[in-house]
């Protein structure tokens, strides 16, 4: 067992880090305040091909691996967690199901522009009354001649206001339970499809999170993804991969909090010396660093398992569960070690703490990760 990246993965890290520090980080505090979606960051990521890393080049992807993708989300999130989730939701939640379950025509029509970055993607499973209990879908899709007619609403959809292509779950046959759920590709601007207001959030504030409303929305029959009734499976397998992205986002946030704190404690003087000289501070730093490293290993392992074609579902759940709690813990400690300054917007650590919280919630709460892990243990 060798815990080292390949030269290719090392270069991805080096380049994305430099890019994120120079191009993405300077905007992070400002968009946290204005909540303005960073379109310019999307354009810059597209130039580097960061919105399609783990997909084949024949579809417009970079042809890279999932570990490189995880490193990319980590480094983006280290600079700006909002930008990290734009990349992650687009890649893992929209591109992946199209790549894994789409027909060749669907891939050419929808996946290629997504991977080239000409279009942005979103994924819509959650409903007001179907969160953790995602199987209780109330949005329906009824086949009428050549179209499915969608009615219902989705809530908390990442990238919603900016996306062009949506993967949407809806009930096609209520009598079949989860086997009655199907996945659809819905384009922005389809009549009957509208957006609700943008959520005002604690963290990742410039990420565009909205309600989707479907009223008599006709989607061509050929836009069903996979077969009728396969939607729940598609959603669950999509989320398995997405959790690697969110674990990586949490890791990037935690790493940044650690980096900021290491620097701060060596500069801040109290009792006539840098506070880093106090063992209580050193011990806290040691705890933070260990958690970050453990989160990294779990995250990279899950990505590597995916690359090697192994079953990574439980590994991804462990990575997301651990990395998100680590991010929360490390960012809270980062504020503590910054003292009163850390509580102000003079320093980035308060933003990091607010950004960290979401990683324990979306793409399955911590409780859901534990359910996934437990079900892999107790069969």
């Amino acid at each position: 067992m060798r815990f080292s990246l390949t030269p290719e993965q090392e270069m991805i890290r080096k380049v994305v880090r430099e890019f994120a520090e120079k191009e993405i980080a300077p905007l992070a505090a400002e968009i946290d305040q204005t909540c303005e979606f960073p379109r310019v960051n999307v354009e810059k990521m597209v130039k580097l091909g960061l919105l399609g890393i783990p997909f084949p080049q024949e579809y417009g992807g970079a042809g890279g691996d999932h570990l490189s993708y995880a490193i990319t989300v980590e480094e983006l999130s280290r600079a700006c967690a909002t930008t990290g989730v734009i990349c992650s939701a687009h890649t893992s939640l929209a591109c992946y199901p199209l790549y894994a379950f789409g027909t060749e025509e669907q891939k050419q029509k929808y996946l290629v522009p997504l991977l080239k970055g000409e279009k942005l993607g979103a994924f819509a499973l959650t409903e007001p009354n179907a969160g953790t209990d995602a199987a209780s879908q109330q949005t329906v899709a009824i086949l009428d001649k050549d179209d499915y007619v969608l009615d219902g609403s989705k809530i908390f959809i990442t990238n919603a206001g900016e996306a062009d292509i949506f993967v949407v779950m809806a009930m096609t046959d209520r009598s079949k339970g989860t086997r009655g759920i199907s996945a659809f590709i819905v384009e922005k601007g389809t009549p009957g499809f509208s957006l609700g207001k943008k959520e005002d959030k604690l963290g990742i504030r410039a990420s565009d999170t909205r309600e989707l409303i479907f009223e008599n929305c006709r989607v061509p029959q050929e836009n069903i993804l996979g077969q009728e009734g396969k939607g729940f499976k598609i959603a669950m397998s999509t989320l398995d991969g997405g959790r690697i992205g969110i674990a990586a986002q949490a890791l990037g946030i935690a790493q940044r909090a650690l980096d900021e704190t290491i620097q701060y404690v060596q500069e801040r003087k109290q009792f006539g010396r840098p506070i880093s000289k106090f063992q209580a501070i050193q011990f806290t730093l040691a705890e933070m660093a260990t958690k970050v490293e453990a989160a990294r290993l779990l995250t990279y392992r899950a990505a590597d398992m995916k690359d090697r074609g192994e079953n990574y579902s439980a590994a991804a759940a462990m990575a997301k569960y651990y990395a998100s709690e680590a991010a929360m813990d490390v960012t809270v400690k980062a504020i503590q070690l910054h003292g009163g300054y850390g509580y102000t917007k003079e320093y980035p650590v308060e933003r990091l703490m607010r950004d960290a919280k979401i990683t324990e919630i979306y793409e399955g709460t911590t409780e859901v990760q534990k359910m996934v892990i437990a079900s892999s243990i107790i069969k």
Partner: protein
Amino acid sequence: MDIIVCVKQVPDTNEVKIDPKKGTLIRDGIPSIINPEDKNALEAALRLKEAYQGKVTVLSMGPPQAEVALKEALAMGADEAILLSDRAFAGSDTLATSYTLARAIEKIGKYDLIFCGRQAIDGDTAQVGPELAEHLNIPQITYVRDIKVNGSTIIVQKALEDGYAVVKSPLPVLLTVIGELNEPRYPSAKGIVDAFRKHEITFWTAADLNVDKARLGLDGSPTQVVKTFTPTNDRSAEILHGDLDQVVGTLVGKLKAKNLV
């Protein structure tokens, strides 16, 4: 248009610290980078290729680790990369470096343009580019900050201390470029993947080149480093304290004593 870009791998001097006791650079664990102005050179070459077609070859002399720098150049969009690596090249000064690069360029054969950075951030001599042009017996324009191609001639702006000169030259020509010239692109993710999975780096040793062995490496380097030292600052400062009139009086007295006022 066939373009050769000479790139040197250098320690990231932003990260280099000086050993306070020995006065030497601490190179351990310092990341290596492409010499910054060589990235500007590569960017210029890539833009010309995009505008006029052709091929961009990157050439470096250095230890095997310099492969990483060439992979990055490939990831940015270079078509081919050649690394000159041999123990016989070790200890080269600028003369031996430029001689070796020149023989390699002769082996490559066809070229319209050769790009170098103005200077390397470690060696800092700015000699390799001009020497290389002399070895190859082609014109050179240094400190280039703008480039226009017009058929088989090139028109560039050459930076001067207080302005710039517009210089025209036939091709082939060697240009050394400065940071002002452009903003180097980031390698794309696809470029990085291709650099590692699709491109091979060509390695040449002394045996692959038509060279006079006596002109290589340490033996071929007339420059002798006698001693390196960190300059000391012997100047001292005096700060005057007290009430303003008194301080001004003392200051004027001191300046007069030194015949400065």
